[in-house]
């Protein structure tokens, strides 16, 4: 799992709007709208820019939000990635 990369699903044309800490995402393929908090918003925009492993994403998010990239954050990111996959925002992208 740790070596699996995650990438925004290419088929899912995602539209984002941000207000302060909030991020609203519209997935034009599923037709669903999602509200993300600061962490979710930063994580998703980061993945939009480039794929990442759970670890790598935790690092990016930590540096952007000024957190420490500790176990707790890694676990949160792991859950977040699972949620994102389930609702069709991202998919696994095998590393070469």
């Amino acid at each position, binding site marked *: 799992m740790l070596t699996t990369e995650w990438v925004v699903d290419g088929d899912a044309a995602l*539209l984002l*709007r941000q*207000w*302060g800490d*909030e*991020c*609203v995402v519209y997935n*034009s393929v599923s037709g669903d*709208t999602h*509200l993300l908090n600061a962490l979710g918003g930063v994580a998703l925009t980061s993945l939009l820019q480039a794929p990442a492993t759970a670890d790598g994403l935790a690092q990016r998010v930590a540096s952007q939000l000024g957190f420490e990239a500790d176990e707790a954050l890694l676990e949160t990111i792991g859950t977040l990635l699972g949620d994102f996959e389930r609702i069709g925002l991202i998919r696994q992208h095998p590393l070469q």
Partner: protein
Amino acid sequence: MNVSALTAAELGRRLRGCGLSLRTGAFVALVRSSVPSVAEGIGALYADFPLEENSDFADFHIGLEPPRDLRRWIYPQIVFDFDGHAPFKPLPFDQAFPMFEWGLNWCVSSHSHQYLIIHAAVMEKDGFAVIMPAPPGSGKSTLCAALVNRGWRLLSDELALIRKDDGQAVPLPRPVSLKNASIEVIRNFEPTAFINRECRDTIKGTVAHMKPPRDAVLRAQETAKPGWVIFPRYRKDAATVLQARPKGGTLMAVADNAFNYSLLGTAGFHMLADMIDACDCYDFTYSNLDQAIEVFAALQPPAP
């Protein structure tokens, strides 16, 4: 020519015969009914509304008639007919006029996908519209009925229609529906407002309708730019509080209160996001109507 130009006899004759071609905001309804309370309700509450004399096109063909079977006579019922087809179960005969109102709301909200349609009251002041989405029981209609008697122009008490091209709120001023205690509240608040006779034991309790202010009906073609989104909540004895709310959460809450947000797809998302972006968004708790009016009167247009 307005409905008021017809005598009661002529109004009844048209409703029983070729139909009454009534313009309400952007829509024309061709209404047929042999039921006296429908004629009475339309005559009283739609007096200021224009008749569509020269057009051969109606957006909705509506009928309100008793059923053809035994229920015509035994515990009599009324059926809402949408062009030969009954989308709802019949209601008790006494509820014919409310059924006309609910039915016409259904026609608009089920078919008018050229708009983003939000279940909300909409009123205008100084060119800006306040949109008040609210689930039943939040006191939205009472507050709306009060505000439109205190300087706000009624666009709608039920359906906010947001136009695709320019995001403007399009008026659909029609009778304001009042329920239970709020009927008496508004009677006392504004004794000059005309409220028709009550219907009891409906699924919403006791209902009545308030005649829309004449000015609102005359200005039904004047759109307004959304400026505020306010979620009202009536709480007995509560303090009057206007509290800013986050925009992301507001977008989700308004989408939940929209009839056709998911139908509109990407366009719907952009329309709603643009609207929320341009509006100041609040939660509003109140128990005292006069205080509520003051708070609304003090609302400033959002910063551009």
